[in-house]
């Protein structure tokens, strides 16, 4: 039993399992303005589209006016403390968003994000190259059954693969293999550390 977890919120550990339906929540309990404000804020935060005051009122089972009141207060609070975020009402409802004056830094951040992230096409191509290297584009096509020119370019751009000379065959196609960066990104000392099909079969075939 974790002390940390208990300290944070002793009740929720038990309650969560019950996953109570809307109806079960007793709307009768008086909800103070502060709590209403907090829940409304949390609800707007998790929503994937603007939330109307009515929706909030319906879920928390309070009057819509009460919700409107705390939302107006919240807007003022966000503004007053020069938050990097704003609570704003747009056509469909309420939404939390960043402020336009920081857009440059935000954009710079979004661009800077290093990504070990790959599209499925790139991932498949990388997997084939990792396990079959050195391998040519026609051979990758043969195995994947799909052309992958842009995937190869992406992988080269991300420095995950490198050219490994030409194959002495018709057309002398370029061969590719994984790079040092590939090893670093995937935390491998060398290629022998790549999990083998056997490693995986041991797991998949195991019964428990």
């Amino acid at each position: 039993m974790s002390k940390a977890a208990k300290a944070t919120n002793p009740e929720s550990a038990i309650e969560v399992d019950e996953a109570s339906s809307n109806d079960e929540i007793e709307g009768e309990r008086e909800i103070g303005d502060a709590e209403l404000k907090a829940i409304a804020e949390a609800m707007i935060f998790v929503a994937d589209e603007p939330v109307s005051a009515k929706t909030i009122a319906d879920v928390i089972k309070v009057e819509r006016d009460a919700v409107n009141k705390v939302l107006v207060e919240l807007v003022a609070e966000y503004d007053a403390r020069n938050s990097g975020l704003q609570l704003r009402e747009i056509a469909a409802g309420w939404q939390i968003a960043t402020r336009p004056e920081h857009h440059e830094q935000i954009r710079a951040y979004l661009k800077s994000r290093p990504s070990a992230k790959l599209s499925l096409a790139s991932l498949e191509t990388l997997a084939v190259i990792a396990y079959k290297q050195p391998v040519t584009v026609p051979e990758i096509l043969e195995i994947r059954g799909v052309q992958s020119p842009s995937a190869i370019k992406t992988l080269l751009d991300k420095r995950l693969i490198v050219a490994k000379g030409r194959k002495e065959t018709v057309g002398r196609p370029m061969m590719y293999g994984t790079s040092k960066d590939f090893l670093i990104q995937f935390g491998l000392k060398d290629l022998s550390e790549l999990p083998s099909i056997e490693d995986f079969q041991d797991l998949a075939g195991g019964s428990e």
Partner: protein
Amino acid sequence: MEDTSPNEIAIPAPAEVRAEPAQISVANSKPEITPDGDTDQLKVTMGDFEGPLDLLLYLIRQEQVNIYDIPIARITDEYLRYLTLMKELDLTVAGDFLVMAAQLIELKSRMLLPRDPLAVEEEVLDPRAELVNRLIEHEKFKAAAEMLWSRATVEQAVFKRAEIETDKNNPEVAVGLFDLLRVFQEILARQKEEILLEIEREEVSMAEMIDRLRNMVRSAGEVNLMLFFERSKSRRELVVAFLSVLELVRMSEIALVQNETFGAIMARAAGPEGQAI
């Protein structure tokens, strides 16, 4: 006890009925022995035994003995009694349980040996020490697992923001080492399937499939279509099998009958009106 699950059986209560039910810390982690209402029987729920160490810890609790001074003979007997019970319940007794049984029996015999009076005090290691250490080590990790469980529970009550515009510009997935292997296997499986399909394409023709079904109906009287379809080695062969059924029905050679709602669909030789005969 009609409504018992396969893991539960009723056994006659032994003389020494223990009043206290087993401690349950995490659901299904321990077998549960509880008096069953007004009958003088005990209901035994085997639960998910996570392994021999779990069973041993359970028995030690059950017998209320000191883990540092385990009466090996008694615990070994109890342990073997449980293995027998598990077998009677038709629960698969994993090899790990049998290995532990062997170790316990060996330990039991070593405990019976007289101590070498000439041995220096320090050299006289309690033969149980290793087992005790393993048990305690194991129990620590069980407690750690419970800690993780409660942390995860709290964490499930915390929500992150929903997807926003900037996420949608970046639909790529984070990739781990095993993703590479998994994806590579999927590609190979896909390739294999295509090759199989190629081979099948040359093998079973529509005419051959019709003949096959016709012969089966003729020789067996009726054919369970589900079984017939299951013989197909590829998706394409399955389609051919399905089409050949339709074709024979169309030609009034067979009729399809179903003896009960949702029951198996059988193909039978059809009479002139297309009725089953």
